[in-house]
């Protein structure tokens, strides 16, 4: 069943008016509720399978040999081919790409959180000339299409004073931070506004400096917001594709998404499909772990991005 067909079903089921219901005992409504319940679960399970099966397919294919994946795409592995994982890690360089991704994302998530909350704190809690202007300057970044920016950005990086920033960890980290700041500042500014000012004032009266108040009082209070936005940035930066494609064209500095795209595009000729599937699992595992542990925060953090 394709997604369009599901949707046709969905539309047919919602539009026709159900049979007129007699007003009266709640029994009638109970039956309607019961039918609806079965129907709901039916539809929801079908969609769950359409989403879940392709993902499980990656998992079980990561243990099959190439031949098995190609000739019997739906079959379960007959024996567990663990060598796919080492092939992916070593021969297909996924290990190197994993390390590259970890370094870049580790640095940029920390950088984004620190710099983003510093800017947001100042913008949320201090009045000074230019406050509004700087806030809107940051927020405007959310509406720039990245495609329009990548060409000049490429030259900003290439012609950077002293050293080219192309295909370097620190270059990518700086770019990831810059492109994560708009939403982080937007989100954290509204978060800091909701925190009570009495605690900060008490700390100041006790003689704490602004900087100390921020790091020792305000940041710990902002922890729920920091977790949400931290996960949001981690997922976005871990899965980033366009920016590394343009700014990181040296193979030994590739991040996971680039490595996977390259292997996938070459597959027609080389065909170690088992290693490709294991590579996809390697790229997915950190995301899977974070998503499973922080389900609620992931869902609320990502959907908050749509309601800006």
């Amino acid at each position, binding site marked *: 069943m394709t997604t369009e067909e599901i949707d046709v079903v969905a539309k047919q089921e919602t539009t026709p008016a159900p049979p007129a219901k007699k007003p009266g005992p709640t029994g009638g409504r109970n039956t309607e509720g019961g039918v*609806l319940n079965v129907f709901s679960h039916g539809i929801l399970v079908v969609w769950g399978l359409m989403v879940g099966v392709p993902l499980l397919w990656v998992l079980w294919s990561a243990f099959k040999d190439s031949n098995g994946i190609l000739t019997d795409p*739906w079959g379960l592995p007959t024996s567990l081919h663990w060598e796919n994982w080492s092939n992916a890690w070593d021969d297909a360089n996924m290990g190197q790409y994993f390390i590259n991704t970890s370094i870049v994302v580790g640095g940029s998530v920390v950088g984004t959180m620190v710099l983003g909350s510093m800017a947001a704190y100042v913008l949320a809690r201090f009045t000074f000339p230019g406050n509004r202007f700087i806030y809107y300057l940051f927020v405007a970044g959310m509406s720039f299409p990245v495609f329009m920016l990548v060409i000049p950005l490429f030259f900003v990086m290439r012609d950077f004073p002293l050293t080219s920033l192309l295909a370097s960890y620190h270059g990518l980290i700086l770019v990831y931070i810059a492109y994560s700041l708009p939403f982080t500042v937007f989100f954290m500014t509204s978060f800091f506004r909701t925190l009570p000012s009495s605690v900060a004032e008490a700390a100041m009266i006790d003689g704490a400096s602004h900087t100390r108040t921020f790091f020792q009082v305000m940041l710990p209070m902002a922890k729920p917001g920091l977790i949400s936005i931290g996960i949001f940035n981690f997922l976005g930066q871990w899965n980033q594709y366009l920016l590394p494609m343009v700014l990181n064209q040296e193979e030994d500095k590739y991040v996971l998404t680039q490595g996977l795209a390259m292997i996938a595009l070459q597959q027609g000729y080389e065909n170690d499909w088992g290693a490709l599937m294991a590579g*996809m699992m390697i790229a997915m595992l950190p995301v899977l772990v974070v998503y499973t542990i922080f389900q609620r925060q992931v869902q609320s953090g990502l959907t908050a991005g749509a309601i800006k």
Partner: protein
Amino acid sequence: MQHGKYRFIVGFLALPLIIYGIFVISPFIQAFQISLTDWSGLVGSSKFVGLDNFERLWDSDDFWNALRHNVYMLALVPVVTLGMGLFFAFMLNVGGKQKKNEVVTGVTGSKIYKFVFFFPQVISITIVAVIWFNIYNPDPNDGMLNSLLGAVGLDNLQNAWLGEKSIALWCISAVMVWGHVGFYVVLFSAAMASIPRDIYEAALLDGANRFHTFFKITLPLLWDTVQTGWVYMGIIALDAFALVQIMSVNMGGPDGATDVMPLRLYQTAFRDSQFGYASAMGIAMLIVTMTFALLTMRFARRERIEY
């Protein structure tokens, strides 16, 4: 005290502003500047050509072809994705068995459904593309979709999918829908959960059935969220770069049938080194995106309902 305050403000804002200014704001301004030149990437070799790049763009069949595909997706993908998102969210929130004292209940296990549905949203678009590339594999035995169709006796529905000019674009659009429905289920569920239960109860006691309550109560109360979701999904439909680049035959093929604006821009810049011309495409994309967002905001505006 005052002096300390300003030093603190400057100290905290300086670094974020410098990084943001260099890597986001300055490229934004330079994009306009580069679009007026014939720059090929070599330092000092660019010439000011005025609006030539834009004239060339206007006459370019390739770009119109790519833009047309984005517009097709823009017309289809948000409707289907948001429609399905609303439908599933409604099922999750009111499709439950009745319990005493509660007229409207969610289905049991709604958390599990949301967990699974949302999954494609958190994984990388490259992984999504590689998975679907295999599902659409045209071989009747190797292709997951084709072999499934064969197994249930629907051999006549087997197709070359991404290799078939007439449907390749729709195959890629379907992946976009597949990846984003879960996001809207979660988004709309949250919005529905904030609608007071007694509104539903009153309507149901008055004899309205659940499908009427959807159109008369839920949808109007969710309209703001739907509208934002629409803009967001529209912007995704105007992109489609990674999916097309990884999944399509010959980058935008077969025969240009799946080409999209971002892929055109990427190829023009980083394969053909025509940076001035590609920047003009970037400006065109900005204009298309802004026009779409403004039109949506303008025409979808309704009276806001307070509850």
